């Protein structure tokens, strides 16, 4: 969309702009712009003008006659301009956006705002400003340094030679830790919530504790659980302690049992007991079993979410079992075979199941010798087996050869590479 240069104005050019009333009387200098997200999230609803006596005047959007880089002029006289805050909260460009951290949902990272691009739009005899984008690049940094030092057109010329980076307003997610203010200003984390949980996790790591808390509280339990699983365990523990226990329990319940056990071990025993008490019986039981194992052993690494069928089952039973499975399906690589006593009897790879006729017994698809480790096997042993046999998952058995869990390749990868 081609845009005439005059129609575009930076917030740095509007800040301290002299404002005059319709008679040409000096009102003061523009201090801030207010947006009322309940009416229109893109439009400037009020201009905060600081009078020479330091009092604030609120020029409403309909009262603004014209805006240029030189001055602003209202369409009414001084006495018609209110010095009271308009009802409802306003999103303030200088106070809430400029210099604050925001999330660039397009590039999936946290950035700090240097400047804001606005469009001057003549509408029904007055002038409106619309928010176009936020500026984060070098050019906007230079513009901030030159603000009030060089003439505005000179600044524009200089900054034209410098690479600039703008983020369109629709890709900007503001962060507001105060929940009631977030509601009033209609700041949602909707855009953020649509990102991949791993990207949300990266963003979480960049935020301060209150901001993290507000993001987690706004996400649904499942997304929150997935995102939290991707951040370092220490930070997980801090975060879970900062939100209400019920919410924390709901999130831990959605996490994979091994991840949940890891973070519960990091928490003070009192807190983790409270969380376990707040979880549903079944989920809590699974996690409790894992908590008994020593750190960095197969028992602590394994998940209890896996699919095991009776040794007599055939290929057609697999689909049924997968439909009923509650954990994450992506982590299923093999179907395990157990007998009546839950002894591990075999393991059928999903790929082979896929190609076999429906009535083939799973036992025929299993290798004769199934690799497994005891719960107390240390991490190094587990890694060695994964490497030697090119495994995607490895069953874990107790001292009587009962199947009790499965270690998956993603956990081993974390172990080898370290969680950064």
């Amino acid at each position, binding site marked *: 969309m081609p845009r005439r240069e005059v129609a575009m104005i930076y917030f740095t050019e509007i800040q301290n702009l002299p404002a005059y009333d319709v008679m040409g009387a000096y009102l003061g200098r523009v201090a801030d712009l207010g947006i009322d997200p309940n009416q229109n999230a893109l439009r400037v609803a009020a201009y905060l003008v600081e009078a020479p006596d330091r009092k604030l005047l609120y020029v409403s959007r309909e009262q603004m006659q014209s805006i240029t880089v030189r001055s602003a002029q209202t369409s009414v006289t001084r006495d018609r301009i209110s010095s009271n805050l308009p009802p409802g909260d306003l999103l303030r460009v200088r106070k809430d956006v400029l210099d604050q*951290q925001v999330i660039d949902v397009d590039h999936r*990272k946290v950035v*700090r705002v240097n400047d804001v691009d606005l469009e001057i739009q003549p509408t029904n005899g007055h002038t409106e400003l619309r928010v176009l984008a936020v500026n984060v690049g070098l050019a906007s*940094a230079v513009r*901030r*340094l030159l603000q009030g030092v060089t003439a505005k057109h000179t600044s524009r010329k200089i900054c034209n030679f410098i690479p600039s980076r703008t983020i369109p307003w629709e890709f900007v997610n503001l962060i507001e830790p105060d929940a009631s203010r977030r509601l009033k200003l209609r700041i949602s984390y909707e855009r953020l919530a649509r990102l991949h949980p791993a990207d949300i996790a990266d963003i979480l790591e960049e935020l301060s504790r209150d901001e993290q808390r507000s993001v987690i509280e706004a996400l649904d339990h499942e997304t929150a659980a997935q995102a939290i699983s991707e951040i370092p365990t220490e930070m997980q523990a*801090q975060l879970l*302690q900062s939100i209400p226990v019920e919410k924390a329990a709901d999130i831990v319940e959605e996490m994979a049992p091994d991840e949940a056990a890891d973070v519960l071990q990091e928490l003070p025993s009192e807190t983790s007991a409270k969380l376990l008490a707040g979880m549903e019986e079944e989920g809590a039981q699974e996690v409790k079993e894992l908590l008994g194992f020593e750190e960095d052993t197969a028992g602590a690494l394994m998940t209890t979410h896996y699919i095991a069928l009776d040794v007599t089952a055939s290929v057609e039973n697999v689909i049924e079992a997968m439909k009923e499975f509650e954990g994450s399906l992506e982590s299923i690589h093999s179907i395990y075979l157990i007998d009546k006593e839950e002894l591990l009897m075999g393991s059928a790879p999903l790929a082979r199941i896929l190609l076999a006729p429906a009535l083939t017994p799973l036992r025929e698809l299993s290798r004769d010798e199934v690799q497994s480790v005891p719960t107390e096997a240390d991490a190094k042993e587990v890694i060695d087996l994964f490497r030697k046999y090119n495994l995607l998952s490895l069953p874990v058995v107790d001292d009587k050869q009962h199947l009790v869990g499965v270690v998956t390749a993603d956990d081993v990868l974390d172990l080898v590479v370290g969680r950064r």
Partner: protein
Amino acid sequence: MDRKRLADFRTRLLIFLAVVGPGIITANVDNDPGGIYTYSVAGAKFGYSLLWTLVPVTIALIVVQEMVARMGVVTGKGLADLIREEYGFRATFILMVCLLVADLGNTISEFAGLASGMSVFGASRYIIVPLGAVLVWALVVKGSYRFVEKVFLVACIFYIAYPISCFLAHPAWKESVVSVFRPTVESGHGYLFMIIGLVGTTIAPWMQFYLQSAVVEKGIKLKEYVYSRWDVIVGCVITDVVAFFIIVACAATLYASGHREIQSAADAALALRPLAGHAATALFAFGLVNAALLSACILPLATAYYVCEGLGLESGINKRVEEAPTFYWLYTGLIVVGALAVVVLREQMQVPIILFSQVVNGIMLPFVLIFMLRLSNRQDLMGEHRNTRTFNVIAWITCVVMIGLTVLLLGSQFFHGMPV
């Protein structure tokens, strides 16, 4: 009953040990080679008579450090972040550029200290300085935050070298302890300048940024703040206890024997030899090397952190080089330039650079202190944890005195060229 109290005490001790770190490390880095030199000169020139200054210095240090630690815990944000959000881009930018210049000078003086300390053991600076630079660089780039913090804490323990070397010097214990609580004022320029030097080098701008970031990075919670405050208090006290032993060691030997002019901290170490023995010299020099390595590690790191933080660039040792290029270039650049300056430049050329960086430090200190005081009084940031009235009175007096002394120190350096 007693057992319960014991268990209670143990829990508290455990929490304290988990929270401990930022305060103790920051305060110990204050005893960098420059600090050690200043204390040595104070002891050598004026004997025990300046020991009383350690009491007010400790109080001032505690007051200022407590304030930033509290801000870090309450807001969960670094000082550079807060200044940026409150005072805008330009103020932050100028502050960051000044800090960068000052810290480059400081880094040079840390490496100079390393060279000088190792010269006591007969090692060539052409080998030892590049080796130290590589060691410092690799530790931070390759290690995790927890690991690095442990190494730093161990380095803090090595300051024990000074008390031991002081014992070997057989000082007049009674006189030295009494001197701490008996302010004496001597006439003469030298004495006054020495006081200014002692007080003026205690509170450096970069420490405030480092401490607050370290508290935030550690994720200390409001509930644990009591322990964090003790971390700060213990750190400041230990620091000045170490200072006490350095001054006393030099007073008991150099001052007593009339060997009152020393050119460097290594000079002081060598001068101990005929009076207190080889072991005392070796310990003194070892302490110097340890201090140099510790501060050469922390200073460039802290600088890279807060410069990136303030300017909204990505930072952190858990990022890859491509993700946070400015951070890594700053960190590496500071170390390389700092070490190169010591290897390439002759000592006469290093001194003006170090002096200049002290001037920049001094000019910035008032701004940083006033920013801190205003931020920690903000209701919306600090809530119920903002400064109390009594605290404010003490803090403002501390700041005014610090600022006054710094101005005097700078003046003395400018007009008299006194290496205080």
